[in-house]
């Protein structure tokens, strides 16, 4: 099965190559060729690999998929797209359909100089120097076959470049729409965000599916934060149960920079979020928050790595999960403190509540420390809703169902509160009550 899909994708790559004309000789395409040969050699990751111990990709690889190459005609109306934009949102909107930037639906309102928010393919024409300097330099495609696969099919996605000291006041909403109404597809958006010295932006990455065919998203995002740059990044996964998502975010942080990510997963059949940050400049900080609300046969694996390469940096991780029905949650977090990274503060916490007989959690929080003057800790728990709290609420006349929702909402709020876009945070608070059955 796996082999079949692998060779199908390799032949899709040849198809892409044949449509390139002169571009086939560019250095950019050279990287793609390198990447496809890495993918051909490594194949899809198997459970035997320690990093994929708890994630079984056979549900994905058993399907036949076609790589979505050219933005063909897509039957979407403005009304349909607007339905995915949460109420009261004001700001820039980028719509990616099957991994391709849609000029028709995207709307950039920021008019400042020094701001480029647009498509990856457009940036390859306008900012070729930046692409050459940064593309595929951070997300390691030599050792990760899925990153290699994405790199081989790097065609479109979102590209952001903020010049020195530019603050984008309007938040950015990236709508990732998977259209699987007609056939099984793979989308491989490739994003590159470069925030020069002192610049900052807030953004939300929202995922939706329309249609019931299996849909496989394999996305890679490279983020470069220069000195004192700041990025708030939220990822909200609302996909359908036949959607499979493997998302890799690789963040490179320079001195005094700040990165914060909140990942909320409540839709999708199989999700694997790889979130890696390298703290490569002193006094930089990284915050990861995660919330997964799982039901039916959902599977979510949050796989994080914070690499403290230099002294005096801070990192903090908080992942919380409510797991119901036959769903499975996985948390794999690694904190790496390199040899000279003294005065590091690194914290990690993973809390899970199992709500049903058949729910399952696998957790693997890891510390790898090579410096002595550090403060590092991690904690992981698994349990149920607190009986005493339930009793307390019920004794005050609150029904069992209400009490349960109240407690679950309180449990989740800690993560949602990390979102700094007011309208989005409010929207998430409302949405979670709905998800919890209110």
């Amino acid at each position, binding site marked *: 099965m796996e082999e079949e899909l692998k060779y199908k994708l390799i032949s899709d790559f040849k198809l892409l190559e044949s449509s390139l004309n002169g571009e086939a000789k560019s250095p950019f395409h050279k990287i793609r060729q390198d990447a496809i040969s890495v993918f051909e050699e490594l194949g899809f990751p198997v459970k035997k690999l*320690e990093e994929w111990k708890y994630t079984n990709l056979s549900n994905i690889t058993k399907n036949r998929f076609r790589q979505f190459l050219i933005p063909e005609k897509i039957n979407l109306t403005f009304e349909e797209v607007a339905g995915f934009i949460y109420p009261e949102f004001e700001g820039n909107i980028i719509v990616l359909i099957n991994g391709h930037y849609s000029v028709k639906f995207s709307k950039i309102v920021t008019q400042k100089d020094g701001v480029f928010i647009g498509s990856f393919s457009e940036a390859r024409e306008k900012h070729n120097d930046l692409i050459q300097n940064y593309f595929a330099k951070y997300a390691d495609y030599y050792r990760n076959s899925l990153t290699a696969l994405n790199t081989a099919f790097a065609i479109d996605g979102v590209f952001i470049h903020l010049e020195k000291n530019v603050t984008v006041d309007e938040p950015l909403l990236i709508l990732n729409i998977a259209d699987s109404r007609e056939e099984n597809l793979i989308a491989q958006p490739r994003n590159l965000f470069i925030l020069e010295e002192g610049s900052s932006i807030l953004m939300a990455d929202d995922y939706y599916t329309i249609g019931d065919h299996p849909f496989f998203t394999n996305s890679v995002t490279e983020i470069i934060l220069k000195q004192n740059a700041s990025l708030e990044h939220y990822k909200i996964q609302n996909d359908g149960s036949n959607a499979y998502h493997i998302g890799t975010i690789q963040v490179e942080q320079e001195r005094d920079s700040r990165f914060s990510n909140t990942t909320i997963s409540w839709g999708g059949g199989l999700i694997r979020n790889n979130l890696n940050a390298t703290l490569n400049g002193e006094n930089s900080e990284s915050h990861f928050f995660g919330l997964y609300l799982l039901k039916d046969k959902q599977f979510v694996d949050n796989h994080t790595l914070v690499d403290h390469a230099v002294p005096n940096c801070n990192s903090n991780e908080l992942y919380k999960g409510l797991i119901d029905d036959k769903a499975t949650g996985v948390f794999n977090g690694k904190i790496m403190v390199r*040899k*000279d990274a*003294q005065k590091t503060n690194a914290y990690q916490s993973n809390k*899970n509540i*199992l*709500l*049903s*007989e058949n*729910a*399952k*959690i*696998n*957790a*693997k*929080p*890891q*510390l*790898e*420390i*090579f*410096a*002595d*003057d*550090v*403060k*590092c*800790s*991690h*904690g*992981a*728990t*698994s*349990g*149920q809703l607190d009986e005493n709290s339930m009793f307390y609420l019920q004794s005050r006349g609150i029904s069992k169902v209400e009490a349960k929702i109240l407690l679950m909402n309180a449990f989740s709020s800690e993560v949602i509160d990390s979102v700094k876009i007011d309208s989005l945070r409010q929207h998430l608070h409302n949405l979670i009550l709905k998800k919890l059955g209110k």
Partner: protein
Amino acid sequence: MSDQNQILEELTGSEYKYGFSTDFEEVRAPKGLNEDIVKFISAKKNEPEFMLEWRLKAYRHWLTMKEPNWQNVQYPPIDYNDLYYYAAPKNAKKLKSLDELDPQIKKTYDRLGIPLEEQLILAGVAVDAVIDSVSVVTTYKEKLAELGIIFCSISEAIQENPELVKKYLGSVVPITDNYFASLNSAVFSDGSFVYIPKGVRCPMELSTYFRINAENTGQFERTLIIAEEGSYVSYLEGCTAPMRDENQLHAAVVELIAHENAEIKYSTVQNWYPGDKDGKGGIYNFVTKRGICAGNNSKISWTQVETGSSITWKYPSVILKGDNSIGEFYSVAVTNNKQQADTGTKMYHIGKNTKSRIVSKGISAGESNNSYRGLVQVSKRAENARNFSQCDSLLMTDRCGAHTFPYFEIDNPSAIVEHEATTSKIGEDIMFYCQQRGISQEDAVALIVNGYAKEVLNQLPMEFAVEAQKLLAISLEGSVG
């Protein structure tokens, strides 16, 4: 900082206290490993047919296996055909009293600071002393025999209680379990056997001192402890080894079986030769230790203080099969210079209302690496399982490493599992406080480390706790970063 480093260097440069080699004649099997060697060992030990079959099966399986490489320790490849698999002191015949003991061997013990007679009289400890694989003397045996307790070498048990050995050997760690367990099953030379009958509370701590003596002899100890319904036993294992430059492989297997309402407490103080300060020499300690709480309300408790060996690689585990059974793991692992340790535990919750507790304290100094690796698995039917794990690491220098790799696989919603881990160094404020009150830097470190490890040391039986505390102090003298 540089001052402290200097002290560290001076002290950690101190020679291994227990390093010497005793000369006495021995019988060796030829170098290398093949079916003939396995047969040779079995024949030498006069084993019944079933044991030879068992060993050969293990050996044949071992041939099909690959050496694991996932561990967080590094060592040069081992040439398994360049080892002696059997060495026994010549004329090893059974002794009835200490007077019959070879004066050379006796001297070895005396230099190690284990005066047998003193232990006989003062401590009331029965010692099954093992020198290079063959049990030389067993004390207190008669007294234990009155209670029906069998405490002897495993070779003796194979001769005298073959039905027990046949029933339990390999029942917890099967011959196919892992690379080193299979190797051990094929060539194990000797070890201890303990059988506590129904309802008996073993009146004394049972203890075995292991010694590695002959050069180039891989040591393959095999220990089997069976506690019948309602019984209790506390078993101590401690070891020191002579100094030499060639690395020695030690692949022991320990199996514990606790039946209904039984309790087994297994304590280890491991102080084998760690190699010199450049990491040369030293023991490879690759051990498989596993216990099963087979009956309801049974309990198995592992306590270990690991200060020796150039590489320590072991995970004493408990299979919590019986309802309401309890598994415990208390560990202090100290690594210094270029030592490496990858140790931890596995707790398999299978029965209902099972509980486990893990307390692991790692201390890294010099350029050493210290890893905790542990698994807590709650299976689907393990209602109301409870686990608490705490894994702390203390770093002494800026050149050492501390790693934590806990795994949790929770398949039952009623389980409550908690894990905490911290990594830090000895606080400057605490050091300052101690020094300011006239406590020298070294004493302060010893004080703080002992306090840090107290939770584990408290679990050790008295005799061991004293030794362990000294050991910690010696291993870490001055190594504050």
